[in-house]
């Protein structure tokens, strides 16, 4: 955990400003607006869209408290599911049934407690809608909790 919110690298902006600096003080006419505050952020604020259940899409701002908790729990649980890189050794898992593409070397996979494997990006997208295995419909959270209890 801890990498849910990847911080944006703000270095590019400071580098741009830095390259302007040597020009100052050489008698050049200052630009009409040398260093003012940056213009207000114009782009419309993007509200992430979540899917409390399949076929339901709702912007984060319109989720009920119950749905917010559900989604936060899912986000947390997804991070506990094992991941791996496809190395071609598994004879069982050959294809991701979500995108219907064959696994290729180096693909990042995620394994569910029922042992079904999918591309990480494909299954994470589904798990955020429904916490079940697409292949066997096994509820993932129940299986996850029972593995904790037995180990």
């Amino acid at each position, binding site marked *: 955990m801890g990498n849910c919110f990847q911080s944006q690298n703000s270095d590019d902006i400071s580098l741009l400003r830095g390259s302007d600096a040597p020009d100052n003080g050489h008698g050049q006419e200052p630009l009409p607006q040398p260093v003012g505050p940056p213009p207000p952020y114009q782009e419309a604020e993007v509200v992430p869209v979540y899917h409390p259940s399949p076929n339901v899409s709702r912007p984060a701002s319109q989720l009920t408290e119950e749905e917010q908790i559900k989604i936060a729990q899912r986000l947390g649980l997804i991070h506990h599911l094992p991941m791996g890189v496809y190395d071609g050794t598994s004879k069982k898992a050959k294809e991701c049934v979500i*995108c219907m593409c064959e696994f290729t070397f180096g693909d990042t996979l995620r394994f569910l407690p029922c042992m079904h494997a999918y591309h990480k990006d494909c299954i994470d997208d589904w798990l955020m809608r429904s916490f079940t295995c697409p292949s066997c419909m096994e509820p993932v959270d129940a299986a996850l909790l029972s593995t904790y209890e037995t180990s």
Partner: protein
Amino acid sequence: MASMEKRLQKELQAMTKDPPPGVQVDQESCSRVMNEWIVDLEGATGTLYEAEKFQLQFKFGSKYPFDSPQVTFLGPNIPIHPHVYSNGHICLSILTEDWSPALSVQSVCLSIVSMLSSCTEKKRPPDNAIYVKTCSKNPKKTRWWYHDDTV
């Protein structure tokens, strides 16, 4: 969305190469718009619908396969079946709440063929008249009440 189109291409290939018995994709319909297919169905031999021809329309949203396709019967011959309304809407749980991205056009067609095949009496749903008058055009907007698992 690119991944959705890629998956639809794969499904079309599979349906063309290896179609389930009595099921045929109308190639012309898919070549016009990739996200709307027409599928021809034929009632299985030895059932109440033997030799009857039906047409199914599939509409895929941009979130397919995470969202279920919109599937309705189309054309002059709508099967008379307790789960099929006279406007072509189908009461089938895998088309809404029991949808999984591991399902496909092929598996939906098979479910519909088997739903028809297991029918013992040709009749419309009991609430057909009121439903057809009041429903949305999109059957996915209906709050289906799956009350009968036997057919």
